[in-house]
């Protein structure tokens, strides 16, 4: 939810571009085609609030919105597979909800390769959701490569947190 608000704000704060000097500056405006107002149903809030005693419970898994990966890999391991399963079940139960999968990498290696790797990670999660029955029109993927780290440090622990796909409703 917070993320959605943030996105809306980002949508409003569109680029400013500096224009020709002199008296009559023609300021090239950037067309705002932002999708900040994208409607996306009720969100997953209800599933997140109730905390199950069973640590492998569906609510707990659904509360996890990040799928993590090994270095230079887009393979989803068993722990993360369980999270994707829970989200697939949620999407199957709530057919009006769409999902955005944002692929991210750690900072190591080159930005362009990481952009491609982030996409591969997002597609990897998308593929699994589709296998579990979610129709492709409800899934959108985007890669941010190494551009949007959640941990700002430069240690192995930071990198592990940053190699992720964000599941966003």
């Amino acid at each position: 939810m917070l993320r959605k608000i943030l996105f809306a704000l980002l949508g409003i704060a569109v680029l400013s571009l500096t224009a020709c000097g002199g008296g009559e500056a023609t300021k090239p405006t950037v067309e705002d085609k932002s999708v900040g107002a994208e409607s996306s149903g009720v969100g997953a809030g209800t599933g997140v609030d109730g905390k199950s005693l069973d640590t492998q419970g569906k609510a707990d898994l659904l509360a996890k919105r990040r799928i993590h990966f090994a270095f230079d890999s887009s393979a989803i391991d068993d722990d993360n597979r369980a999270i994707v399963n829970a989200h697939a079940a949620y999407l199957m139960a709530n057919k009006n909800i769409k999902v955005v999968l944002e692929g991210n990498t750690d900072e190591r290696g080159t930005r362009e390769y990481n952009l491609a790797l982030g996409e591969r990670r997002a597609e990897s999660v998308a593929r699994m959701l589709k296998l579990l029955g979610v129709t492709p029109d409800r899934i959108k993927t985007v890669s941010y490569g190494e551009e949007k780290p959640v941990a700002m440090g430069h240690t192995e622990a930071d990198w592990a947190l940053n190699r992720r796909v964000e599941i966003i409703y």
Partner: protein
Amino acid sequence: MKAVQQLTKLMVVVLLVAYATPASAILTIEITQGVDGGLPIAIVPFGGAGKERPPQDVAAVIEADLARSGRFTALDKKVFVARPTDDKQVIFKDWRIVKAEALVIGNVQPVAQGRWQVEFRLYDIYKEKQLAGYSYVVAGDRLRAVAHQISDIIYEKLTGEPGVFSTRIAYVTRERDAKRFLYKLQIADSDGYNPVTVLNSVEPLLSPAWSPDGMRLAYVSFEQRRPILYMQNVVHGSRSRIAEFNGINSAPAWSPDGTKLALTLSRDGNPEIYVMQMSDNSLTRLTNNPAIDTEPSWSPDSKEIVFTSDRGGKPQIYRMRADGSNVERVTFEGDYNARASYSPDGKMLTLVSGAQGRYHAALLHLQSAVLQVLTDTTLDESPSFAPNGRMILYATERGGRGVLASVSSDGRVRQLLKLQEGDVREPAWSPFIHTTPTN
């Protein structure tokens, strides 16, 4: 002829300053490794006339330029036995005594309306002759540009190769606001001075690529919250979207003649390399592989394109003909080689080479297949050659912050370019500027 060329160079920069806003933060250069044994050159403080002092110490800029190149050693002024400012005052033996091999003298005089006349002369001490002498009349804020042009002339006369002091660099800065990051695409002189912001965004910017005429930058912007390719005229600021397909639109690389752009698109399912004709935006697909194919770069003769692919399991550099045929792998050392680009003579690639979790800017000598690591930093990105092939500029991390670094292609001279605050990344060195802007 030369003067006309220089004048047009000046015009390019003047126009650039006219449309863009001055940036607050400036890149500062710190020489982290110098060399002994540069050509000893005496640069005499320039003379003047009248009480008015020029707003820029032209001789000091020249001295800093030449010292930074690593190919000259500027002699300590304390040993000078004379301080000539014009031709009549030059006595060659004064300079043989201090072991200077070259001498630079000059003067800066005010003329009307805040303009200045700059004269300089370069001498070969042993041959006892003048190698170059020029006069310029410019506004006060152009004195640095004149100094860089003089540095270029000196460099070329003494080394036989063109200097890059009058070229510029484009790069991306990231600063933190109260709540978010702010990204700026900036262009500065090659010594970091006169930065101007040509684009502001709250979303990431990457991969700026200069057109061969130095007039346009192609780059990737996430302003629509996905990677879309833009092209911007750096003279008047107009910009357009050039690729906005589903998926990734990125990794722009101009063909040497500027008529085509190689790029990466994942519109057909996974990242592939395409070539776009700039005349009609038509696309030709060059790669077709389920692996990641990205980071294309043209050979200087336009016949080949190198790119990064993980079709062998890990990212490595491959080479193909410009029509996509004859793909061959060119890197075999290390478990991560990416973002290759050619040296201006086509004999080397600079690339990011990773092994044991360390990522260095490196050189691959194409003839011998020798891979030469250039740096001791471990998170290097985006290396590219200076247009004369003598330096490699790249991004790295120092003290937790993004900085730019340069290293001479022989590995002997190293510099850091950093901001007072925030990160700087994605450097791209401009080409030499030869064309005349038509307003």
